[in-house]
């Protein structure tokens, strides 16, 4: 019997990254723009999706949604169905994040070629979703003010992979000890120059700026 050491150097999550790459190709072929929407539970992911649909619907933008949840519920997807957009509910079976395979399966169930914007609502969690690429064009985090201003310091990885940051619930700022300068210094250290939009999905404040940004990203069909 002989022993030997085999050098590998392979990323542990390599399989996921390959699938994510395939997802991207499919989404690109359908000329849709796609977003991985991450946040902690209760930050306003679904409200943000509804505000985005509300702002783009009249302009004829077709939006498809993938709703990730750890439990077999349809609370979020029912809200999307109610406003007339195609939605697929993914139950992760207790897993703390969506992965590229779950998105691949969900893509099969969406009318991808009629969609201009694909919004993937990840499981509410600031840790695990950061490690799993889905194949979307951009990663967006919704940070809400009641969560506190220290979140970039406590969950650095999720901030590092972002393309856009949404700061939600700014209407609550007068009632909270949220130090915006401290928060933004943390963000700046992790992701210098990150594009961010301060909004309130409840009052609609700031949503217009976000809509301008996303409209410029949409494919001209």
């Amino acid at each position: 019997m002989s022993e030997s050491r085999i050098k590998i150097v392979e990323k542990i999550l390599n399989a996921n990254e390959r699938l994510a790459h395939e997802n991207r190709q499919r989404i690109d072929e359908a000329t849709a723009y796609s977003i991985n929407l991450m946040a902690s539970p209760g930050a306003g992911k679904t409200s943000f999706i509804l505000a985005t649909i509300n702002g783009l619907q009249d302009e004829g933008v077709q939006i498809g949604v993938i709703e990730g949840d750890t439990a077999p519920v349809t609370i979020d997807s029912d809200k999307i169905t109610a406003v007339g957009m195609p939605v697929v509910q993914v139950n992760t079976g207790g897993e703390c994040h969506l992965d590229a395979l779950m998105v691949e399966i969900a893509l099969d169930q969406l009318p991808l070629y009629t969609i201009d914007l694909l919004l993937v609502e990840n499981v509410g969690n600031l840790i695990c979703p950061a490690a799993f690429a889905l194949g979307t064009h951009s990663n967006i985090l919704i940070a809400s003010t009641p969560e506190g201003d220290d979140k970039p310091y406590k969950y650095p990885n999720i901030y590092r992979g972002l393309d856009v940051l949404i700061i939600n619930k700014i209407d609550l700022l007068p009632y909270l000890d949220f130090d915006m300068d401290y928060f933004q210094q943390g963000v700046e250290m992790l992701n210098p120059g990150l594009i961010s939009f301060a909004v309130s999905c409840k009052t609609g404040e700031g949503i217009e700026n976000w809509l301008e940004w996303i409209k410029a990203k949409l494919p001209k069909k």
Partner: protein
Amino acid sequence: MHELSVTESVLEIACKHAEKAGAKKVTDVYLVIGRLSSIVDDSVEFYWQMITEDTLCRDARLHFKRVPAELVCLECGHQYLLAQELTPCPNCGSARIRILSGDEFNIESIEIQR
């Protein structure tokens, strides 16, 4: 976090390379984990025992090598290692920093018997 799916990925990669090399058995698996990649060694060990039962990796030992996170200040060029929480540059106080390493999450090598 998601230790089970991580452990399954490790097993899949280790078995793939072991089979390719004509191994009868894998005795050791060497992982490199950056300071910024969160993983609980004990949980991985626990799942590893469970899922390797009927595979080439049965009884193989897992080795975790931790590598530090290195940062560089974009103002003064000072390089430093991440201590506890993220802090501005200890040399000039600037918050304009870039993280150079610490994301590693790799299988580096395996030890096999033929």
